[in-house]
């Protein structure tokens, strides 16, 4: 069995043994459900508050669907750092990393096993939200392309967030610091979009905007997946994992 898969299985199993996993799924589902409910209620209130001939100007897709998945993306910002903070820092603090380092396992296999297991868990974390598309289909909003884009966007965003959280965990033995660093790294990918708006230089502004995750996520929410978006997600994931691997290997420096 591949070492990556062995580490993946062990990490995934240990996640489910900790109270954190079920607590997170419970809280995330509650928050997601509450958000969905509020958006629906808000939409109905808005529709009822305006004349019938203007109601078509309020888009259900934009007001409910896209907002829902943008909000879920925002909520994930607070859920992923607590999941990733322990990945390397806890192993270092407990000295369990010595078992991995003393085994015929490469640093890349360690990083990949940990990344994939946590990413897989985040996918499980959003599984209960699949109830929303079912409700939406039932309510007659069957825009499958948009919904697939929304979930693909969330899944790719989560991969980036987990990669950045893993990097933060590789940088410190302190789990709280790892969580805060992870949060900052993820926030940074959002802030770049806002920073780009304040930059006068067009070229620099465009580069910063491209480096921000929000524009790429918005493309996916609209059901558009370009090669530029795929390159972006691939680059962020690769860079965060590569630097994590370098950090792990720095024990030899």
């Amino acid at each position, binding site marked *: *069995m591949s070492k990556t898969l*062995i580490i993946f299985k062990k990490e995934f199993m240990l996640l489910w043994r900790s109270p954190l996993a079920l607590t997170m799924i419970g809280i995330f589902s509650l928050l997601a459900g509450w958000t969905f409910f509020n958006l629906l209620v808000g939409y109905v209130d808005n529709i009822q508050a305006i004349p019938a001939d203007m109601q078509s100007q309020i888009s259900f897709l934009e007001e409910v669907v896209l907002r829902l998945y943008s909000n879920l993306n925002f909520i994930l910002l607070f859920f992923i750092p607590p999941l990733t903070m322990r990945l390397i820092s806890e192993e270092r603090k407990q000295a369990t990393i010595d078992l991995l*380092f003393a085994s015929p396992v490469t640093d890349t296999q360690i990083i990949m096993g940990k990344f994939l297991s946590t990413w897989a868990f985040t996918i499980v974390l959003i599984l209960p939200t699949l109830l929303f598309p079912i409700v939406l289909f039932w309510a007659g909003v069957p825009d499958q392309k948009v919904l697939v884009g929304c979930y693909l966007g969330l899944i790719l965003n989560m991969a980036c967030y987990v990669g950045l959280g893993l990097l933060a965990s590789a940088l410190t033995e302190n789990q709280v610091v790892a969580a805060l660093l992870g949060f900052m790294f993820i926030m940074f990918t959002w802030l770049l979009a806002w920073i780009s708006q304040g930059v006068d230089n067009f070229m620099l502004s465009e580069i910063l905007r491209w480096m921000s995750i929000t524009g790429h996520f918005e493309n996916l929410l609209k059901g558009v997946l370009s090669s530029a978006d795929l390159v972006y997600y691939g680059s962020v994931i690769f860079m965060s994992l590569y630097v994590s691997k370098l950090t792990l290997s720095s024990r030899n420096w």
Partner: protein
Amino acid sequence: MSQESWAIKTEKLTRDYPGVTAVKELDFSVPSGVIHGFLGPNGAGKSTTIKMLCGLLRPTSGRVLIEGFDPVTDPLKVKRMIGYLPENPPLYKEMTVSEYLRFAAQLHDVEKSNLDAAVKKAIELTNLNAVAKRLVGNLSKGFKQRVGIAQAIIHDPQVIVLDEPTSGLDPESVVEIRQLIKNLKDKKTVLLSSHLLHEVEEICDTVSIIHSGVLLANGSLQNVRERYRKHSQVELEIKGDCPDSLLLEMDFVQSIVREEKKIILQLKTKDEKRDAIVKHLVGAGVGVLGISRIESELEDIFLELVKAGDKHE
């Protein structure tokens, strides 16, 4: 000793940290199939050396050879040949003993068809049957240490490196773990880092002593005792009286200790001078019933070497 029979060999092994050299040009070798004691006071560079042996740390210069292979150029091969128990056993508290050992076996490339047998064998060897299904986090320190040893031997390695394996254990566990280590000797080479000198004397065949990253002594216990003792001690059994003044007439006698009917002479020389002592006493009309050499305690040699090392610095 031929080079082929060395399980572990270091050549000018050096490791620098910013501002400090933890290990300086260490040259030592461990023959195959022995239990080798690795001694040194705290901060001597033992753990740094062990980490370099196991491929956890790269040397700044020099090299390590494990069964002829360098952990820097052949890390995966060397790691398959080594079983390592760090000072703090690397245990996942949320796993059961069986799950943990299975995970360790998989990491060390134990074949799938052999996994169950390897786990069972390690559990039996370390006497963990009673706790195999329990969570590691709920075990006593003694059992945790055994689980650590079990993971070090799970893949049937040729070389086993144990860092302070009996540290903090109750006396019964200490005896059991020492016996377990002795049992490994038949087929394996064991490097045992310990600060318990009597433990090293009890179970080790060869020994290395390091201090401030420098090798002070290396060889079989007997050789180290012979080579590094500065004074001999002899035990005399005398018939009748023998005044101290008569004994002190021998200019090589440094001090005299009397224990009931026995007299222990500490000599100024490495040579035991048993012939001269007997000749002197018999010549003075004292009956000598017996005379024997007292082996130097490793502890004395260790302390003398470390003290000499400190002065040299």
